[in-house]
């Protein structure tokens, strides 16, 4: 930990002072302010719309944070050779990856906590303006949705680390991370579709079914973290679902970071 903490802290400081972060935060704040206007335009279900917009604004900002600040934090070390200064200390390549990831996770948590507070403030103000539309509303579900969103971003940044450990440019890492995100969000729907194609009257080859099934177990199923609908409609979630979702997120994250560390151990920095 004596080695990991300094790496995590400088990664966090480098990230939190990055101007791109301010841009992303500003965008989120504008979306949350716009929430007042957009929700007000709806003549019904204002509560659900407000919660949905607030949670989506936080998710979008988190995604931009991972894609444009997180990936940059790792890749800049390789592009600009800042990694020389780190690896010439008594730090192994694995420690570098883990420390760097911890710094990134800290940055995600702090930023998401700030954005979540803004989102909750925006919901609260709309709730005060239109109390009748918030009959079925649950703060714990909103909090849970925000926490799951944070966990999704941590998992995604672990994947970005895994991709960065073997790619040579930040652009490839960015593309792979975006692809993983899109696949992760839609995979369970696609799997359900290809496994029961007769429902929608289409035919799917056995190879496609196999490929989708392999992808299902290879890529993270990010849709399980998306509980915006539950939060917007105040629908309950079982404790076991919450527990296993958190475990799934943490285990997948740990595996991705371990994979990144294993691959990175073999890398050279000419």
């Amino acid at each position, binding site marked *: 930990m004596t080695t990991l903490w300094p790496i995590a802290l400088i990664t966090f400081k480098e990230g939190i002072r990055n101007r791109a972060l301010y841009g992303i935060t500003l965008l989120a704040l504008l979306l949350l302010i716009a929430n007042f206007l957009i929700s007000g335009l709806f003549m019904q279900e204002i509560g659900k719309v407000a919660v949905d917009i607030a949670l989506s604004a936080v998710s979008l900002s988190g995604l931009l944070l991972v894609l444009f600040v997180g990936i940059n934090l790792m890749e800049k070390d390789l592009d600009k050779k800042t990694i020389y*200064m780190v690896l*010439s*200390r008594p730090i192994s390549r694995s420690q570098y990856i883990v420390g760097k990831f911890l710094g990134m996770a800290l940055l995600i948590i702090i930023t998401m906590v700030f954005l979540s507070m803004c989102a909750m403030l925006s919901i609260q103000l709309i709730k005060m303006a239109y109390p009748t539309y918030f009959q079925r509303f649950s703060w714990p579900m909103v909090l849970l949705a925000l926490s799951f969103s944070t966990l999704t971003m941590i998992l995604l940044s672990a994947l970005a680390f895994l991709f960065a450990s073997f790619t040579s440019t930040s652009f490839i890492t960015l593309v792979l991370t975006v692809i993983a995100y899109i696949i992760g969000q839609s995979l369970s729907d696609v799997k359900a579709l290809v496994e029961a194609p007769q429902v929608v009257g289409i035919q799917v080859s056995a190879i496609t079914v196999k490929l989708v099934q392999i992808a299902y177990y290879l890529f993270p199923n990010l849709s399980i973290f998306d509980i915006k609908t539950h939060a917007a409609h105040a629908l309950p979630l079982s404790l076991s679902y919450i527990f296993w979702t958190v475990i799934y997120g943490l285990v997948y994250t740990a595996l991705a970071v371990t994979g990144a560390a294993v691959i990175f151990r073999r890398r050279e920095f*000419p």
Partner: protein
Amino acid sequence: MIKIEGISKEFNEGIRAKRVKALDDLTLQVPKGEVFGFLGPNGAGKSTAIKILVNLIRADQGEASIMDRDVNDTGVRKHVGYLPENPYFYDYLTAEELLWFGGKTTGLSSLAIKQRTDELLRQVNLQSARKRQLRTYSKGMVQRAGLALSLIHDPDVAILDEPMSGLDPLGRKMVGDIILELKARGKTIFFSSHILTDVERFCDRVGIIVAGKLRLVDRLDNLLIGNASLEDVFLQEVDKAGGAMEI
């Protein structure tokens, strides 16, 4: 103190993955307390050898050790200070934070870090800029911050890759003074440089590498017999090897 035995290294170059030999059977020893100058034309393999010493790259063949410990051993770098060529550090960190990082990762206490930071930033003349983010620094200032970082833990071995690069005459004098002070304190210094007058001023021994092969290693006083300058010796060795080959 520093031991390099039969090290070879090849790189893939270009899209057709042509193999290029960067180091060819390099053998070299630098005893404790010596200032060793590593000279060679651009692309001769100086930085490759240095990066193997700090484990940024790994040799295809041969072994390298510092203080009798293999360079792959992470712990050995507690005793090694490294300044890369044209260093680049985190843009949004201050010099103070950079040195804090260097101190913490080598196990220094907070008090020791503070004392060393004050001392080193004064030495490299960055006291007044210590709280400024590094992205506001000039090239020379970054170089000086890098030198302070490499010495924060008072290492026994300093490996400096082109430490004078990008420095004005005042900066060069300052780096020279630091090297001489380290030498007086019995530290081992391995440095590469293009500035031969600096090498003449500080080094006990020099090694000349051309196209990945070590052509000559000798004491400076043996080389500079009569009116011969280090530049003459250097050019002669490069000529013998067939010119300054790019690799």
